[in-house]
Each structure stands twice: as C-alpha cells, then as structure tokens.
C-alpha cells in the first residue's frame, strides 16, 4: 500500500521530502506539505490535488484516508491552497520541536 501511494506521488512529481505517510490495515494517514519538486512547470491546482487523492482512494485495500496538509485545505468538497495566515506550524519542518532531532550538520 505504501509503495502504491508513493508511486502516485512520484507520478505527479510530488516532493516526497515534505510529506510523510503511513498505512495500517487499509487506513492511511498523510501529513506534511504537498508541493511539486522544483522545476516542474505546471503548478499544483485544486483539481490536480483532488486527482492525486482520488487515485489513492481507488487503490485496492484502502479503507480510509486521513489527510492533514499544512498548505492545502479541504473546503466545500474540494481542495484549496491555504493562505499564509491560515497556516499553522509545518508538520515536517526545521522548526518542529517535538522529539529528538537529527540536525543539519555538514554539507548534506
């Protein structure tokens, strides 16, 4: 299931480094930010975001999906980009303070 989700994200040029997901018994949790990798000409649109998650929902074995994005929000049945003032602290970011962290040391 995780592999199939990853394949969909890759197909849509989504930057996996800003997202995290897990699946247990057909239940999927996705969190983070949905961005395309740099240099992809076509930007993400509400309908594209909808397409991505629709493709995931159609995967065999999916029971439910819990999506918590920091830069897109579900509104009136569709997705819309979050305005900067609506955004909370990123779920996966350098500013995150929960738990021990592996710091950015060296050239990476």
């Amino acid at each position, binding site marked *: 299931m995780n*592999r199939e989700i990853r*394949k969909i994200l890759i197909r849509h040029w989504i930057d996996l480094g800003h997202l*995290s997901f897990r699946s247990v018994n057909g239940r999927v949790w996705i969190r983070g930010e949905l961005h395309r*990798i*740099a240099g992809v000409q076509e930007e993400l649109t509400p309908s594209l975001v909808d397409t991505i998650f629709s493709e995931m929902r159609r995967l065999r074995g999916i029971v439910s999906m819990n999506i918590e994005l920091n830069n897109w929000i579900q509104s009136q049945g569709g997705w819309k980009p979050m305005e900067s003032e609506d955004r909370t602290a990123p779920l996966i970011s350098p500013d995150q303070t*929960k738990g021990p*962290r592996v710091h950015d040391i060296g050239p*990476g």
Partner: protein
Amino acid sequence: MKKGMKIISIDDEPSVLKCLEQVLRSHGYELLVFSDAEEGLQALREHDDVGLALLDIRMPKKNGFEIYKELRTFKNIPVLFVTAYPASFTARSDDLVQIWKREFADGTTDIIYKPFDVSTLFEKVEALVGPMED
C-alpha cells in the same frame, strides 16, 4: 520486517551517521554506517540481507544519485535519501528527471530532509520496509 533488519547508511558527515546509528539501533535495526561512498557501495554488494539504504546526496567523490544508480544495477532495495538540500530534487536536472521517471517510479524510494524529527524518520523507514516485528 524482522527485528534486527540490516540498514546501510552512507553519509560523509560522521555526526549524522552517529545520530542515525543511535536512533535506529535503539529501535532494533542493525545499522552499518559508511562515510566513504565506495566502501558503502562495497558493503551493499557484499551484504545480501540489507533491507534498506540511507543515502546522503552531496558528498565528495560520489554523490548520492551516483551511488543510487550504481546500487540499482545490482540490488533493488528500498532507498531513503537523507539530505539537507531539497533543491537537489529538481526537474531542471535531466539526470534527476531520468532517475525520477525510471527508478523512483517503482515506489521504493523516499526522501527525508535534514533536520528532521525522529518520528518522521521512523515513519518513513517503516513505510519503506514494513513495521517492526519481534
């Protein structure tokens, strides 16, 4: 995935390797760490039971994408890129575009950006290799 699964990590920064070693070992993984790309690749060739490779991208001598391409010629295991440089993944690079379309498309490759919290690291590792069993 069985407890004690072997992971190979290649990163030129010893402090990052030490940190990865500590946190992954504490969760039951066996971690082999290499700061030299060639040594890491050699270990990947020699160990048949490696379940996951963690690859830094910007390294002297050989970068993570070069290691990745070489690894894929002899072993098809999940790979997690561990990097501080999101800009490394850009469609402006023909090389990256080729890897993305040809190799990433099979869904066994993921990316984590430094710095990261440990829970995200485990989430990504488990999503690649499956949850830990006794």
